[in-house]
């Protein structure tokens, strides 16, 4: 102990041997502080934390610089869940003695574990919330909050006390007993919990007393006597057992055993077997589902491939079918060949040209188009003339059906030929198809107003006057005269033929590049 005046170590005397200051009262106060500290320490050792806190507070009231008392008080607060008070005591302790102070370690432990500190803070907030609920009669919500707090920090005495109080209010005495027992294990000197526990014990005793009177009455009726050190109680209504009764008991026991087997063991076995079967069924079902899914996928792939195959077949048909590009090329080449062999045989070349379906389509090449146009321009006029000539000859010979066919062709190839139209109408007149004849005459009157045949047509339409004269061909027809193929045209035709042949081979190659099934040679 140091002198408060000069700081020297004091002796057993009541004054300072160095400065002579009176230290009697000073020593008494310091000793009193130490006494309370020792008392607090003793109480803390037996977990009387409330008592320890009271003693330590007294110690600090005597001497607020008693570092040990302050540190222990902080520790007691910490143990009862009062983190803030514990921290404040340790911080003050550290301010008083900055070095060689165990409070430094306590503070460091808490500050270095921020998660723990945050957890403490959360629990304090929850407790405050629960208190608010309790003050506003929301006891159910308060209980829920307090249960959560106590579950996370079982040392938080404040929360434990409030929870016990709410249970007291709800007259849930068993819960009060349970909570207070838990709390008193941590703080044996907690008077609040002790009060609640005592109340709970009284209530539980009263309840048990009320319900247990009948039982006790029966017990009192039992005959008991003392033999030496032992108290013997004779059972009520216990008659002496006979041999037959034993056999009956054994039989009853066996029956009970069989019943147990039947009602407990057997159903369990059956349930196990069912579970096994269900598991197997589930596995098989899962496998089946997986297989079905695989099959669906495969079917979809097959459908997709079939559609793709159909697309390819359609494309091949576009090239190799009757109306395909290949057929058009063949017809064009045949027409060109026929025209090259005999330029005057326009009918033959024209018949091939008529078979070409896609002369203007995008599938044909430019060479194809140029050759087609060339042949068409040269052959059509000549063919029209030949058809007209043939038709006129057949008309004059009385073969009106043949004349109609030829003249139809002639007019189709050269729609500007009024002569073809007139003799076609005449052929219908001679074939007794008056309606068709009048229709064609009207067409002639409308389409060719300057035609030399207009008057005859009008006379027939208005008066039914037939023209019975033989048909004659006009020497100067509107249709272009047949032209001789010059050497230059022959050369151009040759070049176009080669180009068409090349285009045909390219088209054939394109048709085979799509992995189509082989096309029969005859196609």
């Amino acid at each position: 102990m140091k002198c408060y005046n000069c700081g020297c170590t004091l002796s057993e005397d009541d004054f300072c041997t160095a400065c002579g200051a009176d230290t009697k009262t000073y020593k008494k106060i310091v000793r009193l502080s130490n006494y309370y500290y020792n008392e607090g320490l003793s109480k803390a050792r037996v977990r009387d934390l409330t008592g320890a806190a009271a003693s330590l507070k007294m110690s600090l009231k005597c001497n607020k610089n008693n570092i040990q008392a302050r540190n222990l008080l902080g520790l007691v607060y910490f143990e009862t869940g009062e983190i803030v008070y514990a921290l404040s005591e340790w911080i003050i302790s550290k301010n008083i003695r900055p070095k060689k102070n165990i409070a430094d370690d306590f503070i460091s432990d808490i500050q270095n574990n921020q998660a723990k500190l945050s957890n403490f803070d959360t629990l304090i907030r929850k407790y405050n919330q629960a208190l608010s609920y309790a003050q506003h009669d929301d006891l159910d919500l308060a209980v829920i909050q307090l249960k959560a707090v106590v579950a996370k920090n079982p040392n938080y005495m404040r929360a434990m006390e409030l929870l016990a109080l709410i249970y007291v209010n709800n007259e849930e005495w068993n819960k009060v007993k349970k909570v207070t027992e838990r709390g008193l294990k941590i703080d044996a000197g907690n008077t609040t919990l002790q009060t609640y526990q005592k109340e709970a014990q009284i209530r539980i005793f009263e309840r048990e007393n009320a319900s247990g009177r009948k039982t006790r009455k029966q017990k009192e009726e039992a005959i008991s006597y003392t033999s030496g050190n032992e108290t013997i109680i004779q059972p009520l209504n216990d008659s002496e057992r006979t041999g037959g009764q034993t056999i009956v008991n054994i039989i009853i026991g066996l029956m009970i055993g069989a019943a147990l087997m039947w009602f407990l063991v057997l159903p369990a076995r059956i349930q196990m077997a069912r579970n096994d079967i269900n598991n197997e069924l589930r596995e098989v079902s899962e496998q089946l589902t997986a297989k079905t899914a695989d099959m669906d996928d495969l079917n979809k792939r097959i459908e997709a491939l079939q559609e793709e195959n159909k697309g390819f077949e359609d494309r091949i048909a576009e090239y190799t079918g009757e109306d395909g590009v290949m057929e058009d090329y063949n017809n064009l080449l045949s027409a060109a060949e026929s025209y090259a062999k005999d330029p005057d045989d326009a009918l033959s070349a024209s018949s091939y040209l008529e078979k070409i379906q896609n002369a203007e389509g995008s599938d044909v090449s430019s060479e194809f188009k140029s050759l087609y146009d060339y042949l068409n321009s040269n052959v059509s006029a000549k063919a029209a003339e030949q058809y007209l000539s043939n038709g006129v000859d057949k008309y004059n010979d009385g073969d009106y059906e043949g004349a109609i066919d030829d003249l139809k062709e002639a007019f189709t190839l050269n729609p500007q030929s009024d002569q073809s139209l007139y003799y076609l109408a005449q052929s219908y007149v001679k074939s007794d198809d008056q309606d068709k004849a009048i229709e064609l005459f009207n067409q002639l009157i409308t389409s060719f107003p300057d035609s030399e045949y207009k008057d005859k047509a009008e006379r027939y339409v208005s008066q039914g006057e037939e023209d019975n004269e033989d048909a004659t061909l006009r020497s100067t027809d509107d249709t272009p005269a047949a032209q001789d193929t010059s050497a230059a045209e022959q050369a151009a035709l040759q070049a176009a033929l080669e180009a068409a042949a090349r285009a045909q081979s390219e088209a054939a190659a394109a048709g085979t590049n799509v992995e189509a099934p082989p096309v029969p040679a005859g196609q």
Partner: protein
Amino acid sequence: MINFDEELKKFHRSLEVEDTQDAVNDHNEPDMLDLLFSMLGIKFKEKE
């Protein structure tokens, strides 16, 4: 018999961690030695 309302009044809001500084500042109450020294009119000089 425990009176719930009376008992509840004994419970107070717990200080949160952020209130630690306030709790430290509230600890400036004088102790018995302070009273003694103020009566004697001297200053405490205990050496560490």
